[in-house]
């Protein structure tokens, strides 16, 4: 992977990228969303707000290389992920976007407000869930396209009581 050290991203471009990513997730275009990652990327939801947490010594909510992410997606699409019957609707709202470039890698910090809902459940009255998170996207340009080498989502309540996160965030 060759990253061009001169690559920069404006805040508007960063927002466009995050909005497009959110749109793919919310419209269920999961295979298209998967293509936003580089082959050696990491998809990480830590269980801790500690920025220095060591994922080899501390359990994460998600710590997927792309092989595991492919398994996750395959499972979600299999119809046999019972927690996702019925499946979640999500709405990812992105804000407070800041961009910097470090060693040729563009780093976008953003806030995420996520709404999640499951309609048509036998037990009815599924509460509309609201989640908040800090996101860090690391991007490089490959063949003229921005790709994620890492997506890290740190939930505000990552170390609290959580009902279920069986959908993509």
């Amino acid at each position, binding site marked *: 992977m060759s990253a061009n050290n001169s690559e920069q991203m404006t805040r508007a471009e960063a927002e466009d990228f995050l909005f497009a990513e959110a749109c793919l997730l919310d419209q269920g275009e999961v295979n298209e969303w998967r293509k936003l990652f580089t082959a050696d990327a990491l998809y990480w939801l830590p269980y*801790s707000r500690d920025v220095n947490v060591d994922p080899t*010594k501390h359990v994460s909510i998600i710590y997927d290389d792309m092989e595991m992410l492919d*398994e996750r997606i395959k*499972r979600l699409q299999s119809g046999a992920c019972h927690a996702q019957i019925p499946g979640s609707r999500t709405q990812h709202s992105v804000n407070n976007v800041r961009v910097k470039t470090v060693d040729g890698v563009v780093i976008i910090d953003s806030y995420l407000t996520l709404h999640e809902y499951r309609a048509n459940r036998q037990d009815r009255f599924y509460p509309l869930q609201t989640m908040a998170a800090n996101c860090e996207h690391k991007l490089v340009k490959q063949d003229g396209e921005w790709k994620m080498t890492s997506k890290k989502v740190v939930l505000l309540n990552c170390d609290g009581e959580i*009902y279920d996160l069986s959908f993509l965030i």
Partner: protein
Amino acid sequence: MTVERDYDDLARIDRTHVSLYNDQGVYSDEMERIFYRSWIYVAHESEIPNPGDYKTTFMGDVPVIVTRSENNEINVVINRCTHRGVAVCPLEKGNTPSFVCQYHGWEFGMDGELLAVSMPRGYNEGELDFKSLGLVSAKKVESYRGIIFASLLSVPDISLDEKLRGVKEYIDMYMDFSPVGEIVVGNSGVNKHYYNANWKIQTEGSVEGYHAPVTHATAFDIMIRKMGMPDNYQGYGTKGMDGGYGNNLLEVYSLPDEAVYKRWPAEYIDLMIEKHGKERAMHVLRHRFNLVIFPNLALLEYQFRVIRPMGVDKTEVRMYHTMLKDAPDEINTRRVREHEFFYSPAAFGGPDDYAMFDRAGQGMKAEMVPWILFNRGIKSEEVDEHGRRYGGHTQETQQRAPYFEYRRLMKLGSQS
């Protein structure tokens, strides 16, 4: 006027009545007779390693503090100021020389003793009895291999030694996955789940062999293909066992030597052999099991699972990840990855279990369909040399087991 329930009839040998999962009166009986008067798991000693360390938790509905005193004594006290009922400790864990209630400044020692009150001169002679106003202590606190149990309101009718007699070999094995026989509980993460149904569904569900190939088909497929997990449904699966006093076991597999070498790296096996001797090391490493210590603890491969009833139809489940002291980093990292793969709220296994438990909460509202069935394999059970009943790992011996102790404690409680 309350009518005494017939727990022999409600918790039968081969079935339980749905009211055990729905009825507020049953729940109150369980609190009084099981959660306040028998051995309840409260903590592991590695969670409070130093003098002054404490952890708050619950025994049934009651908030308690587990503390380590200056003299290294472990205490369990009710987190309730004896003055006006305020919880004296607001945090999950920490280190402190004493607990000072922030309402009126009453100060208690790590063993619960009342040390001081604010503005003491406002009390007249005879109005303040320090001796009787300490935080209320559990009647009995004991530990085995660092696992701390307490009984809140009375001394249990059986010793902890007797309570654990039938399953000690498995507790020992759990600890001996560490080359030095010690584990660290919770430092590497705690999953905090809840579901909308009765606590006993998780007690039963923690040793479920039958559901696994149905509920977890997608997860098992990945574990077998990618994680070197033996396919226990094709020959390695062993047994479900009644370990006595409600304790019970799902032995997921017991591997032959060549499969042990596929499951674990040679470096770890060699270290285990060096520390434990060959026979013991191989005995430990060939096993994987889920062990329920009735009513609120389950030891699974990489976790201490703590089950907390929050009313008759809501349950909190905390999974305290466990690390092996002095094991190679590679092994502990594998414990981290494999645990989060299956059990995190975004994982490949756990969310499906909690979906089933929630659906159980829905289905069981139909009280006119009264019975929950646990009769699978009841006619093919065998008894081992220690007198423990066992059956195949996908049978229901292990789900029947808790109800022997359930009946005993619920009937015993009715007499007191």
